């Protein structure tokens, strides 16, 4: 997979959804890349976290991904 094109696909998807949702399962990203193995998609989004484009949100048992700073959590907990 081309890294830049992949990142763009992810960001476009997040932008499209930004009105209704700010956090997503890894599987939601798999659906954007039907040609690629889940492992490849996992590497793409985890790389985007390393580059601080995305961030993890974890309940403790489940991990979700979102655009860094998007959504209510950071502000609500006075962590921004």
């Amino acid at each position, binding site marked *: 997979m081309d890294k830049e094109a992949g990142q763009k696909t992810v960001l476009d998807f997040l932008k499209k959804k930004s009105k209704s949702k700010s956090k997503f399962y*890894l*599987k939601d990203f798999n659906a954007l890349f039907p040609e690629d193995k889940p492992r490849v998609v996992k590497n793409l989004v985890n790389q985007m976290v390393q580059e601080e484009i995305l961030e*993890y949100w974890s309940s403790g048992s489940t991990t979700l991904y979102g655009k860094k700073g998007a959504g209510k959590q950071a502000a609500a907990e006075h962590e921004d």
Partner: protein
Amino acid sequence: MAKHATPLLDQLESGPWPSFVSDLKQEAESRAKNEKGVEHQIPQDVCEDILGILELSYKHGRTHWKHGGIVGVFGYGGGVIGRYCDQPEMFPGVAHFHTLRINQPGGKFYNTKFLRQLCDLWDFRGSGMTNMHGSTGDIVLLGTTTPQLEEIFHTITHDMNQDLGGSGSNLRTPSDCIGQARCEYACYDTQDLCYALTMEYQDELHRPAFPYKFKFKFDGCPNCCVASIARSDMSFIGTWKDDIRIDKKAVAAYVGGEIPPNAGAHSGRDWGKFDIVKEVINLCPTKCMSYEGGKLSINNRECTRCMHCINVMPQALRIGNEKGVSILVGAKAPILDGAQMGSLLVPFVKVEEPYDKIKEVIEAIWDWWMEEGKNRERLGELIKRQGFQKLLEATGIKAIPQHVKEPRTNPYIFWKEDEVKGGWDRDINEFRKHHQR
């Protein structure tokens, strides 16, 4: 005088058992006195406030904790569990009360230096409260604030040569029994396999890759001291293929009362004279043992390696020489569809470095589960939903009698296209030669 009155919690201290309430009060007092002059990095009265918020929850009959958060150390998707309370004005000491999971050492072997370092770190940068250990196996450090996380991570990794554990949709911290380090029952080196797989799958441990949590646990024998069969998506249980080794002289010594049964574990009470027939032969689950004319014999073909006879007479009976591991899959706790124990997938595989045969099975399972598993679906649930047969296909393992749990309850057999000669395609003209319209 305590900061908050806690009449409901106080009641918990009245029973015969040690109470976490007493522990919290003790730590609250020790932090208040601060005899060592620790420069507490989080509120000194954190333990008072944890007691206060818990009392309030008991009073209201509902929790005052929110769920989850964007906390973690840079580059890691697991190991820190964000917790915030919804009454920060009333209980500022626990406004942030994040938990850290720290990878426990193999077999949970510690030296006192490490434990002191851990306690000092946690008095300094956390609440002082720990849980040794969480059910996953980790060292659990309870209660700290977001600005402390990177500092703690630095100390743990640089000064203590330890790492964060797993949480979230990750490989959780693998855990193992003490195995060959101390235990003669161990059929393989649990600590080596556990460590090797922990190192091999660092990425899966620290960076979320899965639909949900995934656990490995390693037991050296079917006694299952880390309860892998009940608590891990993939459970590695030591076993042997050949015969149980019998020392006839020692059998006679047990029968004669010279050696106490169960290595003396039940000697706190007089259970009467040891009765080998009643206590061993008749309790063998597969009835494959006999004791006649002073001679103990075992029909090893029927032995399920339950460990009972060996546990009772450890000096007389020993595990076989041809040792390996059984791999079971799909155990889980009761959140959805009830609790489930592991199902046998690989009856026997030799445990040999670099463990490639074992890694092959693991990776085939992950590929299948990552592809087919729904969000928050454990491996055991996927196996139930799609069938054990699908798991066999995904791992390329041939069905064997040990995979059969019960006689079939469904009379239909559905052939797959590749199992039928020529597949589904037929030459219609060839067919019409023999069958009119």
